[in-house]
């Protein structure tokens, strides 16, 4: 201790400040319970200008009662907040910036508000922090975005303040943990107060204040794909993926995106997959929400386990009745966990299979289209090769493409796209709109969803490009051109080169995989309507009204 002075500062400033703030609402509380008529008053007493506030909301579940209340606090009292949000989804998430209640934002996804976000950045109504993947944002909650306040949602609370979050646990425990254990204040809206919880998902000692909302929190059925809308082109692509990727590389664990392409794969496993004798050999373990289109594969014994990011409206009873497959609590109901499932999807699966809106000539892809800043969500976590991975699986090892003593495997990152979107817009483009959007919004880097050098396979209605086999950038480009149809990128292809790539296994067309295009019929789908899915589930799946037409 030679001459270096110890600082004499207080080590409990956050804890002291929390105590002072909580004392201000003492008269409004009964235990931890706050009457919902007092929520605005309480927020004005608990929040200070400039606070870092996490407002819970992802692409499914929203703390909607608390976001509405925050939008009604006086901007004279509460202003300049630094918001941290997984997803900017609801109108008031941006209204608070127009009113000056909030000033800066760090977020992950803004699909439902992407035009307004772009406008407000341009108009400087909103000061942009960074755009993250889900995992990065959760990570920063523990590093340099430590919250002063967390506004979150749960299904039920008991009188002590224990919480049940059930199937929609999602990121609630993660947000609360970062806040509660660094002396932030945790405010929870619940749908109801009960004497006894089905199970405790989050203990009362992590919680400071509970309010029973006037309405249940907003919850979207985001992962329900009506099989009625699956086209024969998508079925063809699904067949190619099953044969040319899952079978070829023995893909046993995986994550799927939410598109109709991947829904088609899920529905082809019990039919087409069965015919190929692949049951028990592929698609056994999943990091996936409880997609209703997974039901036939589960019921026919294809699937051993599914860990979920979140729940899915209508799947509660079904998941509860299949505890060997899903993660459930002692009470029987599903427990999801977005942070854990993102980690699983990043490190523990063989393959990620997703879709996108634009792919450039080198295979970089983005869902950002002109003037809309939609962010990332979780796809990049799954859609890249995690270089810290050390365990091997057959699929991972099968990606080794060099003779070297230290050669290592790779995660399969598969993009499934039709060469044109609706409205005649090519998916394969010379240059991503993301580049222009980055300039407009002053972003440090262009918002690329998945980088070309992470993509191992691209599947289109034309065929499969096995990009992991490319030995150079030129080869990667040529393989992409071969499957890019009549888009500007596809028109560059050279027929002789394409034939050579087919022989070398860099490109495969349906006939190379012994698939006849005429085989791709809707009759191959294990379920052709939501009604069929309900039947497969023995009536345990209860689709929301908008998917019912019987």
């Amino acid at each position, binding site marked *: 201790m030679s001459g270096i002075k110890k600082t004499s500062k207080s080590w409990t400033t956050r804890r002291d400040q929390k105590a002072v703030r909580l004392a201000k609402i003492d008269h409004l509380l009964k235990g931890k319970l706050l009457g919902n008529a007092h929520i605005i008053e309480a927020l004005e007493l608990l929040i200070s200008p400039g606070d870092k506030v996490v407002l819970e909301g992802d692409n499914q579940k929203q703390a909607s009662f608390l976001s509405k209340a925050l939008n009604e606090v006086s901007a004279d009292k509460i202003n300049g907040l630094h918001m941290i949000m997984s997803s900017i989804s*609801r*109108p008031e998430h*941006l209204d608070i910036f*127009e009113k000056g209640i909030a000033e800066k934002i760090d977020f992950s996804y803004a699909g*439902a*508000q*992407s*035009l*307004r976000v772009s*406008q407000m950045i341009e*108009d400087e109504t909103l000061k942009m922090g960074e755009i993250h993947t889900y995992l990065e944002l959760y990570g920063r909650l523990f590093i340099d975005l430590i919250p002063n306040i967390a506004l979150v949602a749960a299904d039920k609370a008991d009188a002590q303040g224990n919480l049940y979050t059930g199937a929609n646990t999602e990121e609630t425990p993660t947000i609360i943990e970062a806040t509660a254990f660094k002396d932030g204040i945790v405010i929870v809206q619940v749908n109801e107060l009960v004497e006894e919880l089905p199970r405790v998902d989050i203990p009362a000692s992590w919680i400071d204040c509970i309010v029973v909302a006037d309405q249940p929190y907003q919850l979207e059925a985001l992962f329900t794909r009506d099989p009625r809308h699956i086209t024969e082109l998508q079925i063809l692509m699904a067949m190619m993926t099953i044969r040319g990727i899952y079978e070829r590389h023995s893909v046993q664990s995986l994550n799927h995106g939410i598109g109709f392409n991947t829904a088609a794969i899920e529905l082809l496993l019990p039919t087409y997959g069965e015919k190929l004798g692949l049951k028990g050999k592929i698609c056994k373990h999943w990091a996936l929400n409880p997609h209703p289109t997974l039901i036939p594969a589960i019921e026919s014994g294809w699937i051993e386990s599914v860990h979920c990011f979140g729940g899915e409206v209508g799947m509660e009873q079904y998941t509860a009745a299949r505890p060997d497959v899903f993660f459930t609590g002692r009470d029987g109901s599903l427990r999801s966990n977005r942070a854990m499932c993102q980690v699983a999807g990043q490190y523990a699966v063989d393959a990620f299979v997703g879709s996108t809106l634009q792919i450039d000539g080198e295979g970089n892809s983005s869902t950002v289209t*002109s*003037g809309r800043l939609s962010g990332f969500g979780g796809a990049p976590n799954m859609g890249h090769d995690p270089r810290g991975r050390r365990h091997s699986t057959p699929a991972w090892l099968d990606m080794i493409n060099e003779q070297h003593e230290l050669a290592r495997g790779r995660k399969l990152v598969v993009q499934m796209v039709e060469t044109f979107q609706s*409205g*005649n*817009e090519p998916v394969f483009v010379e240059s991503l709109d993301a580049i222009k959007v980055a300039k407009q919004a002053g972003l440090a880097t262009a918002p690329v969803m998945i980088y070309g050098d992470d993509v191992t396979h691209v599947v289109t209605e034309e065929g499969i490009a096995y990009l992991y086999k490319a030995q150079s950038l030129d080869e990667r480009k040529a393989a992409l051109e071969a499957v890019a149809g009549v888009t500007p990128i596809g028109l560059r292809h050279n027929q002789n080169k394409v034939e050579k790539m087919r022989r070398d296994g860099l490109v495969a067309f349906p006939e190379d995989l012994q698939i006849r295009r005429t085989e791709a019929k809707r009759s191959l789908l294990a379920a052709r309507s939501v009604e069929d899915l309900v039947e497969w589930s023995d009536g345990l799946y209860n689709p929301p009204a908008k998917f019912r037409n019987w």
Partner: protein
Amino acid sequence: MSVAFLFPGQGAQYAGMLHDIKNKWGLAPTFEEASEVLNQDVLSLDSSEKLKCNKNVQICLFIAGVATVRSFKNKGCSPDVVGGHSIGAFGAAVASEVLSFKEALLLVKKRGELMENAYPDGYGMGVVMGLREHQILSIVHELSTDAAPVYVANLNSPDQITISGTLKAIEKVLEKASKKGARKTKMLHVTVPSHCPLMEGVSSELRKTITEVKGKDPAVPFIGNCKARKLWKAADIKEDLAASVALPVRWHDTTEVMYEMGTRLYIEMAPGRVLTDLAAKSFPEARAISAAESTMKTLLILMEKEKM
């Protein structure tokens, strides 16, 4: 969720349109008030002969829009957000109480006169369907000359875009657009090259007049034409009304901002249905309905359901 009122622009007019509204919803005081302000019977302006004159078209569309709003108001119903396409924006300004009916009507008349007198002949507008903004922009840049200028005008939907300028240049652009894969191209029956720099003179004249009107901050959010922004201040809305005539109408963005603000019911004011179709196509999860083609009873039930 919330309800947006959309006010149609040129193209929606037809002979007898004001008479139809009067037969449907009454509203005699509105037509009387308008006739008094203009010193002429407005019900004489909606004949096919009179509608050949651009000024009359603008006046009739504006009155029709306000009349529709008033019939809702008489039932105690108002929108959560408003926006109008081009001339329609003046109806939206009245609906959100930024301008009075009289103030707006005089401005509309002035706007019509200025536009009509700006370019006697040889100018107009065309529409391209099936190409994107950047594709049309590159064609326009290639073909526009100082002697025969042409511009991208209104962005009605991602693949329905109008162009303005000299007739010759428009024809060339349409021809090239067809070659480049446009689904459909056509000349519009419009004699004025609206929403492009050729209207800058009109815009500054209109700005002078509009400054004289005080205006009030809007009672409900107003989405502007020029940048598709939610506008809160009377001054910003007045500027948008003046500037818009020489700038593209970002209509698709306007309706998308409404959607992001929570709109799930779009009601198009009489006499239009074009904006209804555009909204229905862009937002399959929302409902879009034309007031002119529905009964007030249906409209009120839908509004009530939406606001629950």
